[in-house]
């Protein structure tokens, strides 16, 4: 039972990332009709927003420590963060420690700007082109973004830890009536799940309960009619692209303590997120979220040693097997709408 609970938690946690990325993909597809293969790269850029802020907060000047030597035997140059000079060591350490949560404030405007620039500068020119062209250009863009990040940050993963207060793990076994030490889970992963749920809730609330959201939903259903009413739907869709980029970016920011960011991390998520979108149903936001969590949990269970003993390698193909089964039985996905991508 403990193993089942742990795998459900793992699945929900991984599913949170899938759901956040897939939701952005679906938003872009539902509004602009663009299959955005650069969306995984936006997740990666978000993660590097956290790396960047962390580096800004640890900007340092060198102080020579004559009592110690470096690897060449010269007096050791010690980096002292400016944050120490400005706020004192204790406050400076606290600010540096909270770099990842603080990055949320940094990432939102940066990602919205990147999203809007991407849409206005490149993707809008491909609205009337076939999906294959859109896939090619966005995939190319993803590679460019990767290489830019690699140029500035290198190819190796960069450790970006959670604040000390959230860096440990929580023994949930005793609280749930099980033996202590059997259900241990990292606090940050629980934070990630709650954070994802809040972001998903905010996006749904924004679309459901604001006039802006209502217009966007109307535009998703019938773009021409909304345009005929004199509403500049293109502008709103551009803003939605920015919001989708920000959601992917936030997913990346908060994921950095779980997986040390590297330039390739977006590609690792991209393919699976597309499967999530297809399984959930093209253009369906609830479908994307549901499929994200569902596939996350199924993938976690397929990685159990007991399962792998019977079916080795199942963990590497399970998501695709589930996708095949769902598409055979429900060709529009779990919650797909009629007419989307069927012309």
């Amino acid at each position, binding site marked *: 039972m403990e*193993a089942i609970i742990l795998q459900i938690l793992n699945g929900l946690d*991984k599913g949170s990332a899938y759901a956040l990325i897939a939701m952005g993909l679906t938003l872009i597809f539902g509004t602009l009709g663009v299959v955005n293969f650069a969306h995984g790269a936006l997740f990666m850029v978000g993660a590097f927003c956290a790396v960047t802020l962390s580096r800004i907060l640890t900007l340092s000047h060198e102080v020579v420590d004559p009592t110690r030597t470096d690897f060449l035997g010269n007096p050791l140059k010690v980096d002292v963060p400016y944050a120490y000079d400005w706020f004192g060591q204790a406050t400076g350490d606290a600010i540096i420690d909270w770099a990842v949560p603080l990055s949320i404030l940094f990432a939102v405007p940066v990602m919205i700007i990147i999203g809007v620039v991407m849409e206005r500068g490149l993707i809008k020119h491909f609205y009337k082109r076939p999906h294959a062209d859109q896939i090619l250009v966005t995939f190319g863009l993803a590679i460019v973004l990767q290489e830019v990040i690699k140029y500035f940050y290198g190819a*190796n993963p960069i*450790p970006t*830890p959670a604040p000390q207060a959230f860096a*440990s793990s929580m023994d949930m076994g005793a609280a749930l009536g099980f033996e202590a030490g059997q259900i241990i889970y990292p606090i940050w992963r629980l934070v990630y799940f709650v954070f994802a749920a809040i972001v998903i809730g905010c996006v749904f609330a924004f679309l459901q309960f604001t006039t802006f959201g209502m217009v966007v939903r109307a535009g998703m259903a019938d773009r021409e009619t909304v345009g005929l009413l004199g509403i500049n739907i293109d502008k709103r869709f551009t803003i939605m692209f920015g919001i989708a980029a920000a959601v992917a970016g936030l997913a990346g920011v908060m994921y950095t303590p*779980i997986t040390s960011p590297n330039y390739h991390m977006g590609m690792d998520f991209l393919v699976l997120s597309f499967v999530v979108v297809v399984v959930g149903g093209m253009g369906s936001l609830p479908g994307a979220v549901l499929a994200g969590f569902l596939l996350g949990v199924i993938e976690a269970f397929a990685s159990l040693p007991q399962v792998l003993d019977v079916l080795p390698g199942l963990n*590497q193909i399970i998501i695709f097997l589930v996708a095949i089964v769902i598409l055979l039985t429900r060709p529009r996905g779990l919650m797909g709408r009629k007419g989307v991508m069927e012309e």
Partner: protein
Amino acid sequence: MSKSNFTRRGVLRTGAVGGAGLALPTIFTSGASAFTNEPTGGTVTLGFNVPQTGPYADEGADELRAFELAVEHLNGTGADSGMLDTFSSKALKGNGILGKKVEYVTGDTQTKSDAARASARSMIEKDGAVMVSGGSSSGVAVAVQALCQEAGVIFMAGLTHSNDTTGKDRRANGFRHFFNSYMSGAALAPVLEARYGSDRNAYHLTADYNWGYTTEEAVRSSTEAMGWNTVNAVKTPLTATDFSAYITPILQSDADVLVLNHYGGNMVNSLTNAVQFGLRDRIVNGKNFEIVVPLYSRLMAKGAGANVKGIFGSTNWHWSLQDAGSQAFVRSFGTKYGFPPSQAAHTCYVQTLLYADAVERAGSFNPCAVVEALEDFEFDGLGNGKTLYRGDDHQCFKDVLVVKGKENPTSEFDLLEIVEVTPVEQVTYAPDHPQFAGGELGTCNPGA
């Protein structure tokens, strides 16, 4: 009925004369070039095939720096002579190789076997490289080694740790200075026994590819021989970035040691995840839960940050070694680039010097002469103590370092501390050891 004018003697005579005529240009050709890419002018070209893109690009960049430094030292154009001064063989004079100035071309392996072969082929066929070196993956090393064997050039492997490189996939034209999975297991086991005891239950997470398998086999074999029990060994996809689903079952197992047979990004993420799940704070069977990383790399350890603290592993070489050779290399490299070299840089630098030295001693660039000069060659002064390039399998035998993640690092380079220098006798194995079975060196191929 027609009558033929051919006679048996006539056909034989004509055939002999014609055959000799046809063979004549070949004889002249082979006289002009006895082996592939024989250097004829005042220069000799070496091919450095390293990952310049992809996940190991930083390691590849460090390898290139080391190659560049080695070429400077060989040509006598560097600020100093590096390990040329400490190398036990004194054949190298800093005037190139056999008086020819050393030039080099580079290729990008992308850490993909097909890309690595394509770039190596290009360096051999278009640029005239007489030796190929570098790389940061066993899959690439095995693929390029086979290509060099076919092409008739020498392959001096870079960072490759799988047993198979000098085991079932060994080739006469290929040589490995780097240590291997067996050596890691043999060096680690006694240290682990001394620190953690002989009554332990180990759980292996293994990267699902060739290097992962040989490393798991080596560590399991060594630790089980000293009394450890392996409770489970789970293969993890090479593409995995989140290992939580593989780590949580450990909480329900009887394991009190986790062995991460992972390298690169896999190691960074699996170790980070394992620490996040509080494994290091657990007490199982009355013992502290421990984590072991059989193959450490400083560049990778940097990615895992503070999570490497106190965790044991093995490494081929480390910049903090105090022998004269290591010190000379660290001084040269550090002065030129501003930071200490990695183990990948070290092995590439040493391989270049060893090749050049073998050519000097052989008096020829002919691959078969170089093979003969390198086989069973004993040397010292290159950073790992007395070393033997064994003729049976072209594997270097030298001391192996057991290291531990440093508790209080003084800089971003100061991440590992040497716990023990395992003597070469302890990591030496028979050429027909089961973990290396199934391969034959064959005969050297000079090409042309």
